[in-house]
């Protein structure tokens, strides 16, 4: 037996356990190969900060990737970081902070929502969900920042796509495909992610305004202006109190627009924007760098929904449809706020049942948007379709799923029945 073979046989796994906590890629490969041979489904978990998102499904074995972590290679001057997929986002952000860099896509931290405190999860989970924060309309989604990955497919084969350079069109862009696939295509082992310098200054223009229609109007104008905003939200009256900051004493509804960049240009653009929007001094406040960062961090963390008891839906629409959709949704008992400059609605429904859910889905679909059920009651979850899909795309999805995971052992049924 060669040295290598000896080492491999030592990692031989005890398949009687129900939760595997691998620390090496070789172990993951062995687990998957065994599951493939024995037709055993696997639930794939990072740090479980978003495990409640998606459909419930039965699986005998769980793959816990929380020990599969670490930064492999960080090259600040080349603007990328390469990490193991189980690495907590927190660790990555701390490392980037040292070089004044950031993940520009500002991933949501769902920890506040579910448990009242921060749990931003693992990078594998962030990529698998592809939920981007407030800069979405300017910098793209999580998937736009994935330069390459290594993963294990459903046969236990190690595959890769992309690399560490930004410009790369060699072969199919599988980094896109695995983003937002909720762990149903591959087990991600390594991710190379684009990082960017933090802006020198961030300032936020807060407009005191409780009206949705006016807010959408402000946001539309701001996003179409040459002042190049990097965030735009609207919080109705009932959330105003959540944002009492030194420079923001107003506690009613508010529209906020973020401007980032070199300090003197930020000041110039903030002034310009307030003029372009025709705002009077008493209608607005301006948050300085520190307060601006707090404001957007609370937004990204969904802190207005801290320890939420009721149901939370994430609704994405073309901006032109947002007003009409919210007006229609107001006939239900909802609380909401609008992000992404008007195209993302986070909506809490006090009561939700299968009938209401199906009606809401119809409304949103009619307006060319879609819904993701982030948090709903367990009974409803058992019966509801978490993701919607038409029959043609279902067929294509099924084929793609098979091409990665022919025996459907990864998170089977997490996204769709049969996939």
């Amino acid at each position: 037996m060669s040295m290598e073979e000896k080492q491999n046989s030592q990692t031989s796994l005890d398949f009687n356990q129900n939760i595997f906590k691998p620390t090496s890629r070789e172990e993951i490969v062995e687990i998957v190969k065994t599951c493939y041979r024995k037709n055993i489904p696997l639930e794939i978990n990072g740090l479980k900060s978003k495990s409640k998102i998606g459909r419930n499904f039965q699986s005998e074995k769980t793959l816990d990737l929380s020990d599969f972590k670490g930064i492999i290679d960080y090259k600040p001057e080349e603007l990328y970081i390469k990490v193991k997929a189980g690495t907590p986002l927190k660790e990555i952000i701390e490392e980037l902070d040292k070089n004044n860099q950031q993940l520009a896509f500002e991933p949501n931290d769902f920890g506040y929502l579910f448990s009242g405190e921060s749990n931003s999860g693992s990078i594998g989970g962030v990529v698998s969900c592809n939920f981007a924060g407030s800069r979405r309309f300017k910098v793209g989604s999580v998937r736009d920042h994935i330069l390459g990955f290594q993963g294990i497919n459903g046969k236990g084969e190690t595959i890769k796509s992309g690399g560490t350079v930004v410009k790369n069109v060699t072969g199919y862009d599988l980094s896109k495909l695995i983003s937002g696939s909720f762990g149903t295509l591959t087990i991600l082992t390594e991710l190379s992610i684009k990082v960017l310098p933090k802006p020198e200054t961030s300032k936020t223009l807060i407009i005191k305004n409780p009206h949705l229609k006016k807010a959408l109007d402000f946001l539309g104008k701001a996003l179409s202006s040459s002042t190049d905003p990097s965030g735009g939200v609207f919080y109705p009256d009932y959330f105003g109190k959540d944002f009492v900051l030194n420079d923001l004493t107003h506690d009613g509804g508010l529209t906020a627009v973020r401007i980032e960049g070199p300090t003197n240009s930020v000041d110039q653009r903030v002034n310009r924007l307030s003029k372009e929007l025709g705002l009077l001094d008493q209608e607005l406040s301006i948050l300085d760098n520190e307060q601006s960062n707090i404001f957007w961090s609370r937004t990204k963390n969904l802190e207005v929904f801290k320890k939420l008891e009721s149901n939370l839906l994430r609704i994405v629409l073309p901006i032109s449809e947002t007003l009409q959709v919210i007006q229609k949704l107001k006939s239900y008992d909802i609380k909401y706020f609008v992000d992404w400059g008007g195209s993302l609605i986070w909506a809490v429904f006090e009561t939700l049942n299968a009938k209401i859910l199906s009606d809401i889905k119809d409304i949103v679909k009619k307006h060319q948007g879609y819904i993701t059920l982030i948090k709903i009651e367990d009974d409803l979850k058992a019966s509801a379709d978490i993701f919607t899909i038409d029959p043609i795309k279902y067929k294509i999805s099924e084929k793609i799923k098979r091409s990665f995971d022919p025996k459907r052992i990864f998170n089977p049924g997490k996204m769709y029945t049969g996939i």
Partner: protein
Amino acid sequence: MSTLQMPKVDNAIMSKKDKIALDLRGIINSKNVLSNPDELRPFETDGLTAYRQMPLLVVMPETVEEVSQILKYCNENKVKVVPRGAGTGLSGGSMPLEDCVLMAMGKFNKIIEIDYENRCVVTQPCVTNLAITHAVQDKGFYYAPDPSSQIACSIGGNVAENSGGVHSLKYGATTNNLLGIEVVLMDGTITKFGGKAMDAEGYDFLGLMTGSEGLLGVITEVTVKILKSPEVVKAALVGFPSIEDAGNCVAEIIAEGCIPAGMEIMDKALTKATNDYSKAGYPTDAEAMMIVEFDGTEHEVEAYIQKTKKIAEKNNSSSLKISKSNEERLKFWAGRKAAFPACGVLAPDYMCMDGSIPRGKLAEVLNEISRLSKKYNLPVANAFHAGDGNLHPLIMFDANDKESLRKCEEFGADILKYCVKVGGALTGEHGVGIEKRELMCEAFNDKDIQQQLTIKVALDPNSLLNPGKVYPILRKCAEEGRVHVHGGKTKFPDIPRF
């Protein structure tokens, strides 16, 4: 054709040419089916003109239903189909096969909707890249990705190649500016991926299709996002006494947190050639020349220009000019944009390579290229999207001289292998096509390629859509490097072709 092997010609199909033409004339307007050699000739090559092949037939559908019916027919009758946009591709992606129906998308040439409220344009795929900007510029908007071929290349081709341009550094390539597409699969299925709402749920098929080089589906409609034109744009023209200094300057500008709209480097050979060609006022004595452009509001641009000036001086810049007017800025670019025709003056033919490398490896890779240039005894001039590490060496050769073409191919392959070796990629924006097909094994192992082929087969089980492109024809090439074919015989005739 040089040393490249294409998929085996299906003689049964060849012999049924008339019948197929007749059937296709039953599906679409008969004058949109071309079959005689004079009509087919214009389609025999794309921008990679060293390789030519006449197709069996050309079809020019006018509606998505026609595309669907043609594909369905071809799928049922096992006829190969090659989609074609404007034919400016530089990797042979739309080069026909002898037994294929070439699907020319030229009649899909209308913009369907301009939607300022959602800041997007819905268009047919054969509208040119620049036409989109032209359609929205009077309202102060533009479409950001700007391949040098933008007056000619089609937006559908851009999607198929995931094309980039000078401004991709700040604004991303096609994939980052795309909201949705309508696609027809090989079996005739019509579907839409994405739309005006961002990040459609479910698998990211939009991302998968983008850059798939016409192998997975025919794109029949495209929705792109448009941006507000920046208020101020300024460029600096900087000369350096060495490539190392230029490379270090680029790395430092990026590391300092300035993201220019574009940052280009040309070596001495190209600086001279383009300056002669377009009288751009370049510092022709410099070993390397950089054009760096910033856009935004006045203060923002000024702040970045000042920072750049400092960094350039620190890195021994030998000359530095900042554009004082828009005309002067465009003059700076005139030379760079004429890189191709300028090389056309220097040699009968040139081949444009397209490797991608880590920014820090610029000097190392350029030194290797000049070593190879001596080895192969072929001149080379280098343009470089320096900000994002995308290198465009232009190898000059004579396509009528077989030996010269062979040397050029080998030279190009050596450059790309070196790019991969230093941690880069085979192609940054031009695609793999036929040109870099056999080099895929430098970047990927058999399992990686097999995974990609499994996706291809899932959507096109008979491998009829644009076969012979992107993936090595002989899959076991991992140990082989580039595949050579002698006397038309391949080494492993029994290995399945994709």
